[in-house]
């Protein structure tokens, strides 16, 4: 807040939000806190204490947003950062601190950078999340807890350092247990009876007896490659080179592990902090550098490098085992194979959308519109065989169109019909083939289909919906035979 409005730097101010009809303080600056103003107080009371107090509206969610932003910023210190609501960040620093020359310089760097931004931060490093949490908030001696020394660090701290519920804290307070050391050695049975299970599990978490997991803001990708660049990259050629190097590394790994990627994301971290990314998907697992590069190539133009890109990363969020060989279905001509077709379809899907590609399989319905279904994948096989005994037109109109007919009653094929204003005289006819409605799917009139050849030799598929006994049925044209 101070960062955005520098004039507030030396003024005590608070953030307040309405709660049960009153304005309640949600956050206060150190200047305000020095005057005895604290969180959860009512604004009106604080105004009485300190008339010059500035009150700003606290928008819900803004703190979370800010914290998330900070967490993302902290990715420079370690790849595993988690947000600990309402006011903390958890960094898994294993194997990271030596890059800053040890734990102390590491912490100093974090504090210095964040303080420069105007944040009031406290940090701690410990073996467990619980211990670090407590030491960070309530510790007074050293922010760095040596390995295995969690219990020593915790002893002096108030019970609140164990992340307990307010109700339990209140009871501990009533019983005069002001420090962790006063109850840490009590029999576990007694603790459980009086304070419930949580206190034991919190203790175990802090001491490292119980495992605790954090939810990193950036999920760790098993297939992740990273390429920092010495100089910021601004040209398309440079991006291509970076992409190729990353793809080669990634594909090398995929080949070793017999995996193929189905989705791939290429991210460019720009100098100004903006991340540009392009993503591709493939129809079948792929580990082919050339092919994947071709897919990306279509999209490289959408990256705006602006002042330059400093880091490139390549993730494969979705990978699959590469099937031994799925080519038997296709029985490819010599030299060709299913991979080539898959790669072609990937290119088409990448450029024109995956919705454009269809493959059909027979479906067990007589109703013509339902007799085919779209295949789910390139390799899905037909469950049933195609019906060869039914005469079906090569062209089927997406929707039957009405025609006018002259027809002898009741069940003969038409003598004449008019379609789109043109009169066709029927020369030959086959039929009718009655196709009933599938009552379990849809109700309506049955159709009597006729194959018709007119005087020009053109062949049509016509039908009558319903019968003459039920009134005046409509005639439709539904397709063209070859």
């Amino acid at each position, binding site marked *: 807040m101070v960062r955005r409005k520098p004039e507030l730097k030396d003024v005590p101010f608070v953030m307040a939000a309405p709660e049960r009809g009153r304005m309640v303080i949600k956050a206060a600056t150190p200047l305000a806190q020095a005057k005895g103003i604290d969180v959860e107080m009512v604004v009106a009371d604080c105004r009485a204490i300190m008339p010059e107090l500035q009150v700003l509206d606290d928008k819900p969610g803004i703190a979370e947003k800010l914290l998330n932003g900070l967490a993302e910023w902290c990715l420079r210190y370690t790849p595993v950062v988690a947000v600990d609501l309402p006011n903390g960040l958890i960094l898994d620093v294993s194997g990271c601190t030596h890059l800053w020359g040890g734990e102390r310089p590491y912490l100093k760097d974090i504090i210095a950078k964040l303080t420069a931004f105007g944040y009031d931060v406290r940090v701690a490093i410990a073996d467990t999340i619980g211990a670090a949490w407590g030491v960070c908030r309530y510790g007074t001696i050293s922010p760095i807890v040596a390995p295995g020394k969690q219990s020593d660090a915790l002893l002096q701290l108030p019970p609140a350092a164990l992340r307990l519920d307010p109700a339990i804290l209140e009871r501990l307070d009533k019983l005069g247990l002001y420090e962790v050391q006063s109850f840490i050695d009590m029999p576990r049975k007694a603790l459980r009876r009086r304070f419930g299970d949580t206190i034991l599990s919190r203790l175990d978490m802090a001491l490292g007896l119980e495992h605790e997991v954090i939810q990193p803001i950036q999920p760790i990708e098993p297939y992740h490659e990273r390429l920092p660049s010495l100089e910021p990259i601004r040209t398309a050629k440079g991006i291509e080179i970076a992409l190729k190097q990353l793809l080669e590394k990634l594909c090398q790994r995929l080949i070793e592990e017999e995996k193929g990627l189905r989705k791939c994301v290429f991210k460019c971290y720009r100098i100004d902090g903006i991340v540009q990314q392009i993503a591709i998907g493939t129809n079948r697992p792929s580990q082919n550098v050339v092919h994947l590069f071709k897919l990306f190539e279509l999209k490289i133009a959408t990256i705006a490098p602006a002042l330059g890109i400093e880091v490139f990363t390549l993730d494969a969020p979705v990978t699959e085992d590469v099937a031994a060989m799925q080519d038997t279905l296709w029985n490819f001509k010599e030299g060709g194979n299913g991979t080539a077709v898959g790669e*072609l379809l990937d290119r088409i899907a990448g450029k024109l959308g995956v919705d454009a590609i269809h493959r059909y399989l027979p479906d067990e319905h007589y109703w013509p519109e339902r007799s085919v279904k779209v295949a789910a994948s390139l390799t899905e096989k037909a469950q049933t065989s195609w*019906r060869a005994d039914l005469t*079906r037109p090569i*062209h089927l109109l997406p929707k039957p169109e009405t025609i006018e007919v002259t027809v002898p009653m009741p069940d003969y094929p038409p003598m004449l019909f008019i379609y789109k204003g043109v009169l066709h005289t029927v020369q030959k006819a086959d039929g009718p083939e009655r196709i009933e409605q599938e009552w379990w799917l849809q109700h309506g009139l049955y159709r009597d289909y006729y194959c018709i*050849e007119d005087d020009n030799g053109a062949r049509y598929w016509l039908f009558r919906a319903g019968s003459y006994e039920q009134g005046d049925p409509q005639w439709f044209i539904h397709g*063209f035979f*070859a």
Partner: protein
Amino acid sequence: MSSPKQDIILQLQKEVLSMQRLKKGSAQNLNTGLWEVEQAFPDHTFPLGAVHEFISNASEDAAATNGFMMGLTGQLIKKGTAIWVSSKRTIFPPALSLFGIDPERIIFVDLWRQKEVLWAIEEALKCDAIAAVIGELSELSFTESRRLQLAVEQSRVTGFIHRYSPRIENVTACVSRWKIKPLASNANGLPGMGFPRWNVQLQKVRNGKPGEWQVEWSGGQFRYIARPVISITETPKRKAG
């Protein structure tokens, strides 16, 4: 003409063909079953690894054209898969089994824009793992057709371009231009419809002789129909009064 001269002419014809990259090294042949039609082609074989153009102007003709194309594709697809790129597709996959094609072997690419259709056709033609590419569109300029032709010269894929009601029948770089129209079928005196029968018109063919034939699709293959003596029986105009 003396025999050495004929040899020279034959030799020259072969050279011309190889220059035009129509002559193939491989023994891959399409057995259309239409000896009479094959005589029209250079070297008396149906040109594979080339782009053929089909033009139709009415829905009925379009169905007949697709039928004829499917008859040809059915021969090719035994060795692989086909891609069908179109902007307004009305083909009904179950009917393809009539032409000896497993409909699931055809991958349909349905697009809206003409440019996208052309791009997809070209990409598909460049992929040598595909047996045949069928493209349905209406307009095809000379430059565009040249691109397609160049693509197949590399990959040896056979392309069929079906142009439905084009604005103009412009010159293209395709190896041939066909027009297929339906003909009245012959049910041999039985009631009902007979096998599909078409009037196949080869309007243009590179290094070949254009012609017109009547063809029937029966028993899973093409059959040449000897042209009957056409007797035009015009209905006498009714006189006024």
